[in-house]
């Protein structure tokens, strides 16, 4: 791994298009400003990894699980619809 020391407001350039600037230094955090072209996605490492894990988990659901989950959602909808209206809600009686 390449390791570079930088002071406040100093920069690092990656290739022609990406520039990283140290914009703040605290006791245990560093704030970085990142300029990159639109096609380069920039994410915090832990957020990237969490979303990647969620995507991987979603990609492995079997069809039968989806059908069962859908039927549970529909049952929930149906039981909500059957509940009597709460006091104060308007409903017509014939």
């Amino acid at each position: 791994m390449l390791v570079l020391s930088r002071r406040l407001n100093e920069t690092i350039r990656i290739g022609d298009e990406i520039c990283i600037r140290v914009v703040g230094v605290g006791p245990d955090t560093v704030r970085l400003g990142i300029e990159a072209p639109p096609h380069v996605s920039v994410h915090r490492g832990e957020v990237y990894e969490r979303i990647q894990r969620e995507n991987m988990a979603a990609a492995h659901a079997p069809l039968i699980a989806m059908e069962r989950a859908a039927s549970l959602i529909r049952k929930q909808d149906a039981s909500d619809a059957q509940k009597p209206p709460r006091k104060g809600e308007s409903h017509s009686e014939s």
Partner: protein
Amino acid sequence: MTRDLGEVEVAPDQVVEFVSPLLGFEGHRRFAIVPVPHARPFHWLQSLEEQGLAFPIVSAAELCVAFAGDDLDLQRLGADDWSEVDFWIIVAIRADGGSLRPNLMAPVAVCRRSRRAAQLVLAEREGPK
């Protein structure tokens, strides 16, 4: 050809092209959004490049959830404003179907006009201070 639905005819208006890819699936750009029979409100986000890759998704409108990104997202999606953009939520489903985990941190935005799509990581947006 789909992972679980056999061969399905896909209309051009069901095809999307990712301009910001699904994280972890950077090599996959072309997908179709197809309803899953017998499993409303789920749709498949089915890769057109790899038959075995498909994600269960639900329309954000169906879940009454609203999202918005920023102007750069609109530009990437080729949209003029957010009214042209639909949001879909990727759902992780436990193998027995008994529990669902919708990913509200990173919805999939689709411009209806350009058919461009992007997974927007909204969880970490932070303005300059």
